[in-house]
């Protein structure tokens, strides 16, 4: 569709003006409304065609558009000078002008400079009419309400009440409406509604909780009736004795607990059920009526009760029972709604605010929805970046145990669906490529009737770090603080493989403390341990490269792994170590070669190969050490 076609077919008037307000273009809509064809208006001033536009505000708005390049939106309310088009069609019998909304916008040349003005005219007559109609309807509704207020007979009034209870309002508003209506319709002195709040234990200070014996004892402390609404003589809800009534006690509690659905008292001054007859007499009260409010399963929910200064007729009684039933509907509907809203809110807020990433995936593992924590955890700006991707795209290709992420995911999904859920550890990948360990729980769920998978992902990289710390601690020799034998073996194996690939030399020093047994016998094991610690410290201080690994091989034997180190450098380091240990100057009277503690060191170097075992290097180093021991100790021998 080309520009001209759009221009002509659009249901909006369009006029292009040059900066002198001469018409350059005029679309079909304008021709239709004005009855003037485009050919007749091009080159004519817009003010000549529509004199009403020739006013300061229109002029100003055009200048604003030309100066700032923005769009000015005009409404007819403010600009009653817009295009004077008459409304066409059936309403044309009465001369009516079209309601319009106009915009003035800039048209730019290729270089971006504002060249012309485009005016668009939209017919909003219909929508204005709708707005008017809505206003009228609202007025009618108000009138209807007025009419309701004038309802006279009891049944009329009850119908009004029932209709009102259908309107969406809060439960409290509904209950107030009911007690107000009872006062009005049945000419009661006061009317009240109590509702049970199961499991709501007595507040401190509830006067009924203090009653320990007699007919009014509070027997069921977890089933309290709360005064929800009160109309007539009393409107307050906080009277000490009335704000709560124990289930099974007093009139109200008894009505709630009784098998009988109601309690009618025709002479309140003399009835034993009324605990304060003098008060009733003083107020001139005559009759009392109380009705249970029952759930659909015929369980008590609350009580509706009233006192009146006249007898309650059988007709009134029947109608009041009806009101109690209506009240039950209102209460149950409100409770059901509350529970629903509660659940919704809870689920929603759980989803939205959960710190764990929660994702909904379809059975093939494609994301359908994720919570904000997911975006945060994986480093995505918005949901769009993640929807329609799969869990595989949030994982490295290979998991830490060497399996392929994609294959493993298919397996766990299947398992989760068949077993109803699964927990596992997973290596995840953030959008920036960073990897982290997560604990993942997959739970199959039904979402709008479809089978989906919910994945809750918790970042456990912190926990993993702790585990690594633990591992590191277990890899250290407790006495000396250098690596233990296990670490030595592992490191040697890894370095062997690594250097076999890169074809570089691996050297090992095997060190033994000279005459250490004699040292122990002379100075005791405590001092012996000190010596081992000091030697370890020396080893650590002379091995500066991060890849070098000093370790305790066992007893008084130490070793140092020196990756990428030629024999000559290894010997140099060994000599440095021997000198450093001698320089510690620890007296050893048992030594036959020195006054102080010394070391014998065997050095072995090799270029690791796949077909040679690393033990070969240890054997060589051991041989060299043996040779050092046999040739006078306190020396270095290299194989």
């Amino acid at each position, binding site marked *: 569709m080309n520009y001209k076609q759009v221009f002509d077919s659009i249901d909006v008037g369009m006029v292009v003006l040059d900066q002198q307000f001469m018409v350059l273009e005029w679309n079909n809509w304008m021709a239709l409304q004005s009855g003037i064809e485009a050919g007749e208006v091009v080159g004519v001033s817009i003010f000549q065609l529509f004199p009403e536009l020739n*006013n*300061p*505000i229109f002029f*100003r*708005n055009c*200048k*604003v558009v030309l*100066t*700032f*390049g*923005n*769009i*000015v*939106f*005009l*409404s007819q*309310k*403010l*600009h009653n*000078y817009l295009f004077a088009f008459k409304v066409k069609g059936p309403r044309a019998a009465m001369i009516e002008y079209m309601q319009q909304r106009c*915009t003035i916008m800039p048209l*730019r040349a290729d270089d*971006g400079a504002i060249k012309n003005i485009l005016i668009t005219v939209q017919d909003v007559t219909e929508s204005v009419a709708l707005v008017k109609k809505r206003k009228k309807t609202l007025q009618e509704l108000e009138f209807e309400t007025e009419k309701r207020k004038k309802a006279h007979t009891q049944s009329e009034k009850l119908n009004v009440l029932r209709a009102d209870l259908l309107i969406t309002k809060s439960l409290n508003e509904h209950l107030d409406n009911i007690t107000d209506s009872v006062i009005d319709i049945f000419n009661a002195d006061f009317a009240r509604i109590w509702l049970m709040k199961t499991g709501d234990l007595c507040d401190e200070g509830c006067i009924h909780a203090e009653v320990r014996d007699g007919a009014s004892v509070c027997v069921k402390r977890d089933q309290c009736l709360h005064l929800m609404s009160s109309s007539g003589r009393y409107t307050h809800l906080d009277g000490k004795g009335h704000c709560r009534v124990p289930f099974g006690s007093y009139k109200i509690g008894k009505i709630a607990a009784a098998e009988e659905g109601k309690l009618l008292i025709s002479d309140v001054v003399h009835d034993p059920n009324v605990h304060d007859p003098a008060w009733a007499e003083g107020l001139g009260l005559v009759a009392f009526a109380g009705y249970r409010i029952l759930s659909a399963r015929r369980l008590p929910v609350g009580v509706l009760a009233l006192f009146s200064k006249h007898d309650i007729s059988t007709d009134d009684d029947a109608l009041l029972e009806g009101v109690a039933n209506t009240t039950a509907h209102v209460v149950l509907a409100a409770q059901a709604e509350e529970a629903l809203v509660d659940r919704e809110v809870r689920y929603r807020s759980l989803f939205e605010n959960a710190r764990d990433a929660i994702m909904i995936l379809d059975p093939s593992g494609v994301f359908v929805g994720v919570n*904000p924590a997911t*975006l*945060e955890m994986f480093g*995505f*700006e*918005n*949901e*769009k970046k993640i929807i329609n991707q799969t869990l595989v795209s949030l994982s490295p290709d290979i998991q830490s145990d060497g399996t392929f992420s994609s294959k493993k995911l298919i397996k766990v999904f299947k398992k989760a669906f068949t077993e109803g859920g699964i927990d596992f550890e997973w290596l995840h990948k953030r959008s920036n490529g960073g990897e982290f360990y997560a604990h993942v729980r997959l739970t199959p769920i039904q979402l709008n009737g479809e089978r989906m998978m919910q994945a809750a992902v918790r970042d456990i990289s912190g926990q993993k770090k702790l585990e690594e710390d633990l591992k590191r601690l277990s890899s250290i020799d407790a006495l000396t603080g250098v690596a233990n034998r296990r670490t030595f073996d592992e490191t040697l194996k890894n370095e062997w493989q690594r250097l076999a690939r890169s074809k570089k030399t691996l050297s090992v020093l095997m060190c033994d403390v000279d005459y250490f047994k004699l040292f122990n016998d002379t100075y005791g094991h405590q001092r012996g341990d000190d010596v081992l610690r000091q030697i370890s410290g020396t080893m650590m201080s002379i091995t500066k490269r991060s890849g070098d690994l000093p370790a305790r091989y066992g007893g008084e034997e130490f070793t140092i792994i020196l990756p990428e180190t030629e024999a000559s450098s290894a010997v140099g380091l060994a000599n440095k170590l021997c000198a450093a240990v001698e320089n510690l100057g620890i007296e050893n009277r048992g030594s036959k070669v020195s006054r102080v503690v010394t070391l014998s060191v065997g050095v072995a170097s090799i270029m690791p190969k796949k077909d040679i075992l690393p033990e070969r290097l240890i054997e060589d180093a051991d041989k060299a050490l043996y040779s050092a021991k046999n040739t006078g100790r306190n020396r270095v021998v290299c194989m």
Partner: protein
Amino acid sequence: MVIKDDRIFSNEEIDLLQEIMNIGFGQAAADLAEVVDIFININTPNLNVLKALGIGEYMEEEIRDFDKCSIVSQNYLGDTRGIALLVFSENAEKELLNLLPGATVHGMETDAVGELEKEVLLEIGNILIGACVGKMIELLKSSLTYMPPRSIVGEDFQSLQETFEPGSYALLLKTDFGFEDRNVSGYLFLVFSQESIDPLKNAMKNFMSQYE
């Protein structure tokens, strides 16, 4: 709720953008006075980068000094996308009515006067927002299109932040303005969405290159 995040804008970039806006607003004020006899004073804008979810809270905090206010909002889109909000002090509508020579409330019903006043706010808001944003965008050699202005009722900023992706950032600009000859003042807020940030950065680079 204000976060400083260098990944989004460096301090230098914030300064530069602030300067560009300052120039733009200055020109807008000058042109408004010259072209349409609207005399406004506008201050140096203040820039912040916020999480989109915090916009509502931030706005409420920022306009606390107004007991009652009228707000005109206008969305714009193009290379950059965002919302402009003009917050007027109370009774601004009555003062501003005089800015429209043709409009008169004489002999009108109260209802109609209220609606007229609302329309006046929308129109003046439309012009002010268009002028300020337009000049700034012109300096950046970019272009925008505008949605019709709306008036916001009841300071409902929550609906405002829903315009933006929940996890995203937004660039929020605040400046205060006043009419020289009338007792009307208020704030102008511009909120740019996160996807505006890259185009804005590019535009700023181009802007700087003409001085190098």
